[in-house]
């Protein structure tokens, strides 16, 4: 029977390609989630901007 190296290459090549794509997808998603976590952490450390902040003394109107 002929050796059919093309079929051997196709089987190993397909396996390697699919496994590499899956691995790269995991790595990319891990980076995205790490960025999301960093942004969440930064937001939680910022002072609250809710409500109306008190104006700075220099910007207040003079007392009559």
């Amino acid at each position, binding site marked *: *029977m002929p050796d059919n190296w093309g079929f051997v290459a196709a089987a190993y090549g397909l396996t390697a390609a699919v*496994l590499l794509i*899956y691995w790269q997808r995991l790595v990319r998603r891990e980076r995205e989630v790490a960025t999301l976590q960093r942004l969440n952490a930064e937001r939680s450390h910022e002072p609250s901007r809710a409500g109306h902040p008190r104006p700075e003394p220099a910007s207040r109107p003079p007392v009559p």
Partner: protein
Amino acid sequence: MVRIFGWFAAISLLAGLVMAFGVAPREVTQGNVQRIMYVHVPLILASYVAFVLLAIASLVYLVRRDPRADRVAHASGEVGVIFVGLGIATGSIWGKPTWGTWWTWDARLTSVAILFVMYLGYLLLRGTIEDPERAARYSAVLGIVAALDIPLVHFSVYWWRTLHQPPSLMKPGGFTGSTSILWPLLVNLLAFVLLYAYFVARRVRLLRAEAEATA
């Protein structure tokens, strides 16, 4: 820890390749195309491991409602689908030069195709239900039911007359071929089980991070 697992998997995969192409002999009747066996059989056996672990983790989730068990089941299902899909594809590539056809609806091929579709359905079910608790519960039930197909796939070659050959490794009386074929097969089996464990460990870590980031 996960990184060390990855290195072990990479080194054993490299060793498996060397064994498959450098140590294993050219098979007498099929020629070199038989070397596809060193990737096809380990992929299918590693997918069995994946689906059995999925069923165990699903059972643990249903009993304890522990989200860690659900994450293991989810990760194992995802990796298992990739492995069984590749197992079917490499088997089809092997079948064309040896059987003269890419596919035939015999008992082994049909039962493994059903296995693939059921676990694909498992992943789709997870993705379509928005409530995470409900998704985990429903998919756990499906994961346990789908595992019943694994013995059907394995024993189909004994129960029905099929074109597919009987198992090489997991059969009564053990492996009967030459050790020059057995060792490359075992090294590749170890490599793919390690790769499966690495992917699952990494996917579980990612699922936990995703849950924390979106909480």
